[in-house]
């Protein structure tokens, strides 16, 4: 692709032209059949509506993009990593500040929401935080232990259904309906333990498989659990789902009634309190995940995880029991998924198998991948970018003006996420901000920049 440096600009130009023609031809083949005619279901029949203008626009965009790459990116002399000046270590200095700053920001959100009565923002924050927690949980499995789990949402589902079934059926049956207001606090640990148990049950037979087979098996398990939830009607009420009581403030429901939260504290009833409460619960759960993961990383088991990620065969020859190591990663990751699922059910007041499709697993995985496999701080940014930013885009006026009628930017979310996953793997497989700091060091602590960390260099 690189141009010849000097002397033959003409040859280079024809080369570029030929390449552009090829690009145009291929994008023509890719775009024409699926974009040029849109099949629309009308009341009586299916009709095709032509959109040749859009095709022409997209092809032009692709060709111009490639031309830009030719002119501005590919004709640069490649700079080697070693030639780069070893400047001030910004990432290192600021990295220490970012985490506390984020936490402070996290603590300020409910203050802001209370002050301005902004329910939308805090609801969005709860939503994003749930995904941060899920991704931190999955990060233990994928980022630390290097096991690609495509069925993580199954444990989320186990947690959610554990909450739903225990609260609506079993707890009242065993202890009478008096416990129902407290159900969230009773169920939360149980849900986590159940999910962990499922992690062990599912993990045990599959963990001796190689990486990619393991990924497919976990995908299959995730789908099996979802399909059973749909079809086992007597137990789970199938696709219609279960309505469950929402979380309470230590037994005080957030309702306007006399026994509610507002009446107890003698304040006016407001949904806002429920949101703020939920926000602190998920913040606590997420921080718990963060803290536990960080502690575990420093224990022998955590080091074994990271060693396993780097080289399984070497691990085995060093006498690490790989099955047990993988199993613990799987179970602990699953446990946090279970907590998050239980929280999800208590927040939503409703669970159905619809919430636990494969795409959900893919989104959580995408957050972990975009955060830079293994980086906990990166995950926060990735979760905000993926889950939060599109909601914000949706509201922006200028985008509405630019985009044609009836086009909602949130439609493109998964497309962008998919593309981002590909680009991430291609250009920054270890994340944007990660530096891998060895947990064990000899003499001096050397951080390794993400751009140098590829297989074999870190």
């Amino acid at each position: 692709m690189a141009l010849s440096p000097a002397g033959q600009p003409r040859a280079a130009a024809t080369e570029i032209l030929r390449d552009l023609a090829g690009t145009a031809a291929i994008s023509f083949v890719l775009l024409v059949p699926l974009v040029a005619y849109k099949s629309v279901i009308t009341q009586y029949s299916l009709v095709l509506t032509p959109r040749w203008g859009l095709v022409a626009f997209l092809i032009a965009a692709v060709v111009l993009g490639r031309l830009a790459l030719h002119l501005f990116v590919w004709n640069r002399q490649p700079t080697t990593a070693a030639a780069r000046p070893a400047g001030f270590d910004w990432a290192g200095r600021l990295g220490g500040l970012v985490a506390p700053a984020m936490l402070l920001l996290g603590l300020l959100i409910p203050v802001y929401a209370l002050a301005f009565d902004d329910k939308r923002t805090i609801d969005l924050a709860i939503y994003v935080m749930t995904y941060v927690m899920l991704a931190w949980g999955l990060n233990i499995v994928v980022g630390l232990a290097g096991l690609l789990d495509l069925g993580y949402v199954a444990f989320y589902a186990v947690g959610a259904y554990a909450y739903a079934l225990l609260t609506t059926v079993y707890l009242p049956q065993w202890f009478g309906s008096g416990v129902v207001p407290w159900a969230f606090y009773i169920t939360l640990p149980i849900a986590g333990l159940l999910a962990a148990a499922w992690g062990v049950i599912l993990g045990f037979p599959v963990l001796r498989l190689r990486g990619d087979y393991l990924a497919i098996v976990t995908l299959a398990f995730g789908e099996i659990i979802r399909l059973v939830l749909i079809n086992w009607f007597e137990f789970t009420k199938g696709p219609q789902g279960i309505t469950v009581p929402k979380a309470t403030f230590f037994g005080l429901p957030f309702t306007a009634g006399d026994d509610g939260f507002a009446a107890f504290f003698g304040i006016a009833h407001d949904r806002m309190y429920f949101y703020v409460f939920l926000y602190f619960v998920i913040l606590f759960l997420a921080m718990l995940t963060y803290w536990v993961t960080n502690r575990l990383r420093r224990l022998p088991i955590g080091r074994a995880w990271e060693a396993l990620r780097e080289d399984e065969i070497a691990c085995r020859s060093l006498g690490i029991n790989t099955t047990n190591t993988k199993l613990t990663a799987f179970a602990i990751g699953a446990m946090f998924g279970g907590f998050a699922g239980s929280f999800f059910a208590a927040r939503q007041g409703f669970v159905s198998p619809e919430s636990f499709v494969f795409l959900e697993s893919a989104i959580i995985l995408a957050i972990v991948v975009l955060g830079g496999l293994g980086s906990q701080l990166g995950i926060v940014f990735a979760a905000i970018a993926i889950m939060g930013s599109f909601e914000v885009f949706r509201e922006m006026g200028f985008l509405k003006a630019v985009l044609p009628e009836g086009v909602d930017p949130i439609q493109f979310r998964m497309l962008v996420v998919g593309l981002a996953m590909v680009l991430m793997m291609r250009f920054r497989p270890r994340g944007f901000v990660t530096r891998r700091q060895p947990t064990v060091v000899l003499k001096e602590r050397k951080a390794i920049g993400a751009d140098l960390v590829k297989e074999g260099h870190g």
Partner: protein
Amino acid sequence: MEYFVQQLINGLTLGSIYGLIAIGYTMVYGIIGMINFAHGDVFMVGSFVSFLIVLGLALSATNPIVVIILTLILVAAIAMIVASAFNWTIERVAYRPLRGSFRLAPLISAIGMSIVLQEFVRIAQEGRPKPTQPVITGGYEIMRHTSENAEFVVRLTNMQILIIFSTVLLMALFTAIITRTALGRAQRACEQDMKMASLCGIDVDRTISITFIMGAALAAFAGLMFFLYYGVTDFFVGFLAGVKAFTAAVLGGIGSLPGAMLGGIIIGLVETMWSAYFSVEYKDVAAFTMLVVVLIFLPQGLLGKPEVEKV
């Protein structure tokens, strides 16, 4: 008995479709050792492109038979070209730069590409399932069982004949390409040892590209058959079909062409028999369970060689 024969026919038809998709998985896995997670979605693209052309030409069973056959050949050709272009592009953009990256990178990239393809089709063509009128109708009665209160007729439809016949034809063609031509020799050489093959003057990149193209062409044909058989398609058909076809590829022994076909037929039969004799609701559970069982207990497959993990 008659019921069983009918299920056997249905299972073989479904199995042929799975087998055609499975070949794409098996060939790619054989050469570069990665699961092309987006392959199921390439199948979906083939299916959707066929649907659009059939709809655009207003093809239906009322057209004369010659017109139908000629048009379907045209449709198959276009769908194969488009799907091949997709798979070729995917390989160039998402997989080739990742060779030599860490182990999970290509698979994650493939998952991303799978999402991209699905979302591309969903946004371009909206998400609802798209039905059309049947194109190939009619069939033959091959068995009839009459009892006092019921009558059961075993039918072999023209559509099923077309699927099974064309699958056999394509299989023969591809086996010939792999075993007889220089291209096939290059592919087998790359499969055994990529570095050595390139030292012997084989253009490895080109061989891999052609493998992706071949796999996509078969998947697109399967997509056309799938769409004609069920009369409906949507942006999400690739996921389930892809997982089942992957199961087929592993069951048959990944890397083996006849194995993929055999695995496809077994999966098709299991799925059909399960729906017929146990429960329709749990047929996908059966397929996924099969996948789990095969991967755990028979990862080398029926016709494959056991693989030794190398450092």
